């Protein structure tokens, strides 16, 4: 198990270095930074001065080395607009986003896993069909439609819920629902399919023949096995959500999160912020993936023991 964890972490580190490198070269491809920073009204001498100041006269190798050194020592530069360290700006925004993400994940798991199990057990009856129709609808309706409908109903017409910001617990309800819609639908379907596979296995019959009550058979023997398949799917979905899913919803609800920050800095061409923001999101995705890999091995002894 320890070797497996170390191997997963090593793979994670390699991926990280590759991404950091890609970000560096991708930014260089987008043109000369000086042109963006100062525009046209500048003398040739000042221009030379600035190029020397930013170290842009050094070779690309030297620049890359300096970049690596500062990235790994935690210096990511200053925002063009706010003149504050970008790490500070992004970290301020990361926490609200993370809170929203966690709330959406929690809600999704609480709702979709039981629904999926129900849909699998009652697959031939009306209950199963109803669950699957709802899940299908959720899959078909994009997050921003759900968000706008929620705002219309609960914010504008009924005036029950606050629409803008993250001030209180009530503020979380609508963005959470908007983000979770698709996720609930997806995970419900995957839970159902994974449970259907498991329900027909021989060991389920063994468990019943032992005289175990049905709920133990389903939850202990069934769900434990289904969770192996589920974990990888949930991991992928959450990683996807962390990478891009919340940008639109954060914009709708004026959520002071990282998605909102990324959109704004892209529009205003605040490259240091954008660069660090992308990097942070990438790190989150990598960490989620590594966590899922390790959880996967924990759930399935065949992987855990086979891989040391």
């Amino acid at each position, binding site marked *: 198990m320890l070797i497996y964890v170390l191997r997963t972490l090593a793979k994670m580190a390699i991926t990280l270095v590759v991404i950091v490198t890609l970000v560096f070269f991708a930014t260089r491809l987008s043109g000369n930074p000086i042109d963006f920073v100062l525009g046209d009204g500048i003398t040739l001498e000042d221009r030379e001065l600035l190029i020397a100041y930013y170290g842009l006269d050094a070779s690309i190798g030297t620049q890359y080395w300096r970049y690596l050194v500062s990235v790994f020592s935690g210096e990511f530069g200053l925002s063009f607009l706010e003149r504050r360290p970008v790490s500070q700006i992004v970290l301020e925004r990361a926490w609200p986003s993370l809170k929203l993400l966690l709330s959406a994940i929690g809600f999704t798991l609480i709702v979709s896993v039981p629904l999926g199990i129900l849909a699998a057990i009652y697959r031939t009856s009306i209950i199963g069909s109803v669950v699957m129709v709802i899940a299908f609808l959720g899959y078909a309706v994009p997050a921003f439609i759900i968000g706008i409908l929620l705002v219309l109903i609960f914010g504008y017409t009924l005036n029950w819920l606050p629409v803008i910001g993250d001030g209180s617990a009530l503020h979380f309800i609508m963005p959470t629902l908007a983000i979770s819609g698709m996720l609930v639908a997806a995970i419900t379907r995957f839970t159902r399919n994974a449970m259907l596979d498991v329900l027909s296995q*021989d060991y389920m019959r*063994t468990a019943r023949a*032992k005289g*175990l009550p049905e709920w133990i058979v389903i939850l202990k023997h069934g769900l434990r096995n289904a969770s*192996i398949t589920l974990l990888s799917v949930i991991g992928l979905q959450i990683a996807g959500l962390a990478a891009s899913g919340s940008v639109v919803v954060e914009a709708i609800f004026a959520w002071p999160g990282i998605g909102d920050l990324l959109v704004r800095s892209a529009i205003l061409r605040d490259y240091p912020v954008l660069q660090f923001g992308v990097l942070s999101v990438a790190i989150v995705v990598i960490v989620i993936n590594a966590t899922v890999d390790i959880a996967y091995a924990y759930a*399935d*002894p065949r992987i855990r023991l086979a*891989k040391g």
Partner: protein
Amino acid sequence: MTGPVLSVQDLRISFGTHEAVKGLSFDIHARETLALVGESGSGKSATALSILRLIEREGGTIGSGRILLDDGDATRDLRTLDGGQLTRLRGNAISMVFQEPMTSLNPVLRIGDQVAEVFIRHRNLDRRQALKAAQEALDQVRIPEPARRLDQYPHELSGGLRQRVMIAMALACRPKLLICDEPTTALDVTTQADILSLIKALQTEIGMGVLFITHDMGVVAEMADRVVVLRHGEKVEEATVQDLFDRPQAGYSKKLMAATPKLGTGSSTKTAGTDIVLQVDRLSTRFAARPGLFSRDAGGVLAVNDVSIQVARGETLGLVGESGCGKSTLARSILRLIEPESGTVLLDGKPLTGSSKAQLRQSRKEAQMIFQDPYASLNPRLPVHELITEPARIHGLVSRRDQKDLAAQLVARVGLETDAVDRFAHQFSGGQRQRLSIARALSAAPKLIIADEAVSALDVSIARQITDLMLELQERDGLAFLFISHDIAVVERVSHRIAVMYKGEIVETGPAGQLLAAPSHAYTRRLLTAVPSGIPARRHMPAPGPAAETAPLTLSA
């Protein structure tokens, strides 16, 4: 004598509109073993699952009849009990051991927890006490190092050990009735002998009645006191085991007995030719250990170790050995489906080893394979005429236009109706599918056919028909066969010579009759004594020893 533990009266079970069991009645007394015998589809397993009232889960319904269980306090009709009462009985007064030890245990739970569950549920023990009881239960079924097994997962145990765990679970609460549904069918003959004697010993100890379901008359002779022969859901005969074997009354019982291969009945083969078709010299195949991003090759496992065999035209070489000994790996290495490490293979005088990809493909035409599972080895999406002529197409032996004619010839040769060519594989029974597999192999007009456990998944009478077909084809076309099986009795019937494989090596080779009559290697002798004699009076009842200390090397090919 007190009344029966279990009394089944006029039981009727149906799946949808199909009636699987039609008015079956039988009694089982304490300390008695009743064998329920019949071929697949005869309603044996449906009967067993009805007694546990688990048949409803498999989509069946009990139409009528009574299932009376005497659990010591009272006699109750299991059909009238509700869910809660049933869960208290299952695993407690009645328990069951299933056919497939590889899939019947939960892969993600520790052995200890799975056994302890029964004690927690039925004996109200807490987890610590239950684990202790579980360890004793594992010890009772003679599993070596029971304490260590508690923390292991099913995939770490061999099939035989897993079946012992199943038995430990079933007998944990000392049931009145134990149902065994083909408990040894998936096991090697040596393991089978161990498990059978274990069940008998524990029956003496606990005194339960046993309902033993099997299709193997050899096992019946070994285990049963009384036998109920079942066909199409109806009882065709009920007799004591001695009477059934001495004087079978029903025609079907006689047929079943005749189809059961018995060791020592000789071979039905004709004389073989002399020119060598397959010559294998010092072949070795190694499986690398755990290839991975950060791990180094740690030497690996020698699955086939320095094997030399030859097969002549018109000859069948039988290859026997227990699962994991390397039989299938050898077969695949010969055709270079797995790359061997060293050694040479000559097929019809042409080298397979060391030849180029193109030459190899050309040579493979001369050797075709038939696999064990006729359900998985035929492509479900191809119509039969494309399916069975595919090898011929690949080797350019037939044009697209003549494909259907060739298919018609082939199905006729393997004894199927001509209209079979337009159907799909799923429309055939297991035996018919195996005929299609043979037809497919024949389409390339090979000199050698490698049959890897080709009849192991079939009922005895069907298996008999398939081996008869192979013998017939051999006689007519002079085909050479490499016949791989763990069933020595079947191998004896079809083989000229037999090679015994053990842990990757051929330990003994010789003419079939001679090798079986006077085995020279200790392993061959052990293998032979484990085969059920098929004669009730000659039961062997070896003292139940501990299970093999180390599980046989299992290799996944």
